[in-house]
């Protein structure tokens, strides 16, 4: 069962989460792997929490069981917390540290450093990255999803090659943005490798 790999991806509607997940899925397909993915549409998208689940290798169901994720990839700090029921002690937790404050929030937004601290106290592989800044460095804040895509490919256990992920990216995004997106993927990749 070595080639099994599950990624839970979460964040806020409009951050490009579905696109990122589809790119990983297509890359897996192109490498000849079995892959299924579950995505959220409809009412939940109006600024609400959004998540996708990707399972590579021999699964029928596209839903990751509790504690079943190899990677939790979060586009937003508090969404990381909401995704924790998919996490076990070996799961890599990669998340963007830039908050999106919910409108009409019922509670104050917690301090992001505290979130990181608590996560580190409880899990072995906690990898916060300032994805929003890395995206701006790559050319636009809109390339945040590509930064996080690059971060996933840097995980040792991730079964896909960076090259095939880049191929799938090119197949899915406008040529005009390829250069910027490549830079973003590279930024994300390096931030985890180092």
């Amino acid at each position: 069962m070595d080639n099994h790999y599950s990624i839970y991806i979460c964040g806020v509607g409009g951050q490009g989460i579905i696109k990122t997940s589809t790119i990983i899925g297509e890359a897996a397909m192109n490498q000849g792997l079995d892959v299924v993915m579950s995505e959220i549409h409809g009412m939940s998208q109006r600024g609400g929490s959004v998540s996708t689940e990707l399972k590579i290798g021999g699964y029928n169901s596209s839903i990751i069981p509790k504690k079943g994720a190899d990677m939790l990839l979060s586009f937003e700090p508090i969404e990381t917390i909401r995704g924790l029921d998919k996490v076990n002690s070996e799961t890599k937790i990669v998340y963007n540290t830039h908050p999106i404050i919910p409108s009409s929030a019922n509670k104050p937004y917690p301090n992001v450093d505290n979130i990181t601290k608590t996560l580190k106290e409880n899990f072995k592989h906690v990898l916060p990255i300032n994805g929003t800044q890395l995206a701006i460095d790559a050319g636009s804040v809109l390339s945040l999803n590509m930064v996080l895509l690059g971060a996933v490919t840097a995980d040792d256990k991730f079964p896909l090659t960076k090259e095939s992920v880049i191929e799938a990216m090119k197949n899915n995004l406008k040529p005009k943005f390829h250069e910027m997106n490549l830079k973003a993927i590279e930024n994300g990749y390096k931030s985890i490798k180092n």
Partner: protein
Amino acid sequence: MNLKKLVTGVSGEKEFLLGNEAAVRGVIEAGVSIAATYPGTPSSEIGNVLSVLAKDANIYFEFSTNEKVAMEVAATAAASGLRSFTFMKHVGMNVASDSFMTTAYSGVNGGMVILSADDPSLFSSQNEQDTRNYARLANVPILEPSNCQEVKDMVKYAFDLSEQFNIPVIVRTTTRVSHMRGVVEFGDVEDNSSNNENHWKRGHFNKDPSKYVPVPAFAGDMHVTLWDKIHKIEDSTNKSDLNREIEFSTDKKYGLIASSSAYNYAYDVVKFNGLDVNILKLGFSYPFPKERVVEFLKDLDEVFIVEEVDPIIERDTLACIGSENLNVEVHGKLDGTFPIYHEFNSDIVADGLNKILNFKKDEDIAFSQSLEKLNDEIPSRVPVLCAGCPHRAMYYGINVAIEELGLKPSDVIFASDIGCYTLGINPPYNAADYLLSMGSSVGDGCGFSVSTDQKVASFIGDSTFFHSGISPLINAVHNKHNFVLTVLDNRITAMTGGQPNPGIPVDGMGDEAPEVSIRKLALACGCDYVRVINPFNLEQVVKTYREALERDDVAVIISKAPCTLIKGLTKKPPVKFIESNCNKCDKCVNGFACPAISKINGKIIINESQCDGCGACIQVCKYGALEAGR
């Protein structure tokens, strides 16, 4: 992926498709001529994709005014010998059901397939009903795909089946199948064209009232014919390889019967826990494959039934056990092994199986206290009306008018409808008190206005008004009801992802189309008070609501402004905040609640990437602290 691949892709090619995209490929492979729908999540993407591809695929495609009309378009096409496809969400079947039930009687010549997408756990629906009941109610076959490849293959097969028995066929998906993405291998495309442009016109209807006009004299025989078909099809379900056994064990003590997405969970739990349980997967589940199921049950001691929403396979299985006098114990929803409502997942299925099989180890690491605390502290993130949404301004305006008239919130009942505007239920607007179904806000206005002395404010969208808001409006006028009906005309069907409707000068295939006027319709229904207003003119909104609420007939207010998500709209620059003018009244954050405005450390912050410059908040702020951007 380039969507055109769904048309140009050749046999053997593989793509990573959404279940709904796979359905479109199935339709194309089956050589369908006519397709019609009313958009509904989780089936909407089928229409979005068909709308783009219809011409390339040689398919006539329309967004009909409602599901019943879509059903009728498909039924008549199939009666004329063409392959036709209609699709909707589960609750759409209710709207279509009147015509659907009789389509089963009259039958079809060209294949007719109805895809209905169920929504277990109500991700974006008002109820959880199970479409499989409609197959039984109408007596038509139903197929239950569990993944994207099966969606494509079963849609295609459903057309053959439909033509073989001259009967419409239902394909039932669930949210997790419609919105699942997976690898789909393409098959051959059957040609539907006769090389002329309007090739679909080649259908021909041969008159035969005894077959197509269900007056009592004929309908009785039609019912007999229908049962004959169903008995014959039962033979097919017993032999179909869509109903197949997956062996995990040679010792036949335990078995499991499952369908649709529930099958996926069951398969993964059995496989990854190494359980000695054989699975019978039902893909063709009505007429119920009795012989196949009995053969599976024969040697078993106990059987699990894993299905989402209603215990339908379970009841049929119990009936088989009863009629065959088998000695098999059944574990399903009825004995509480699995929950009787809401979506399943692998954990739920594993917990259920574990009650009997005891395979789970206590490996759970408890969520540590500090994490639990963090979890309790994070703010919720619920869907809200977008920044710049025209509906927000209307809800704000009516609440101001209510206050100015000296009314209490409890004096006015808000009858809501199905669309983005249902999100008005959230504070601070609190603008949804009662909701049943598409178009119900208008009928509810009739009922509340005769049964209470409260004022009634009904809200409905443009698409929903065309769908089923017109007949209750006629009812309201004729029966002298008294309420304010607001038609929120945002120039699109927004909630389901931006499909056109008859109020827009474009049709489902992207061609120019006559625009139907909501204002003229309201006038023609006999409404005396009909006003078209710009929701972003707050003064006008409040004034109009004051007038309308004081009338004692049906007052119609049409709020006309586009949804901010419509592609290609030119946006105004974001508003500017002038701190020195702010008197910290918080009206913009707490009263108006545009998500682009937040208060951080006591200071108003405009999120410039969200604000689309609609200008509503400028009118809300009495102190001039918000200013149009440049």
